[in-house]
């Protein structure tokens, strides 16, 4: 549809026409704001916590544990230099006594959502799957933050939904 619209504008005489092919789905997934009746306030990205701990694959579990103790979180995301999520170290893994690397301790391929995910759907998902939180990443896998169940439920209440 947008290639046709762009071509149509060119045929009318517009000289500089661009086609944002990936469209608003991509825009929202990149964590960028949307306006409208179901704009950003109704999306996961507006209600996330951004202080979620991260570590690198080569970090030692002992050090990760010490950082987590200070942060108040009980989970840590293993990310690369671009903040792309490689894995997650959860509560159980963090209690391991052996001081392995984060890469060895992490669970691969944690389930993630996009910032554009509808808040109502995310709350329903967390409720049905008994999840306390959902990590939020951009469409290219970079960690944005964490949507917690209490935050999401409270946001829905405030939105009157």
């Amino acid at each position, binding site marked *: 549809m947008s290639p046709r*619209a762009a071509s149509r504008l060119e045929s009318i005489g517009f000289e500089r*026409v*661009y086609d944002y092919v990936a469209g608003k789905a991509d825009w929202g997934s990149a964590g960028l704001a949307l306006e409208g009746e179901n704009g950003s306030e109704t999306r996961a990205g507006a209600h996330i916590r951004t202080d979620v701990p991260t570590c690198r694959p080569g970090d030692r579990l002992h050090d990760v544990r010490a950082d987590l103790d200070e942060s108040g979180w009980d989970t840590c995301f293993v990310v690369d230099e671009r903040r792309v999520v490689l894995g997650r170290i959860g509560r159980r893994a963090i209690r391991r006594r052996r001081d392995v690397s984060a890469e060895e301790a992490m669970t691969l391929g944690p389930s993630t959502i996009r910032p554009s995910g509808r808040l109502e759907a995310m709350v329903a998902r967390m409720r049905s799957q008994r999840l306390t939180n959902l990590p939020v990443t951009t469409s290219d896998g970079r960690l944005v933050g964490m949507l917690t169940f209490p935050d999401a439920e409270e946001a829905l209440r405030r939105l009157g939904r």
Partner: protein
Amino acid sequence: MPTPIDHHEVQRLLAEEQAQLVEVLPAAEFADEHLPGAISIPLKQLDRERAQQLDRNRPVIVYRYDSQ
């Protein structure tokens, strides 16, 4: 031929060249959500008269929901 761009280039064109954003989906979908500053010209209404809303001296970026 229209130039395909990603969201980084959209942001640059908006910031540096005062580009105009046009959503070509039906009006109800525009009302539901749209990019900040965009205007709605559904594809089926995109004729010369509607196009007069646009400034021919500035870049125009069209978009829909996704690439499908």
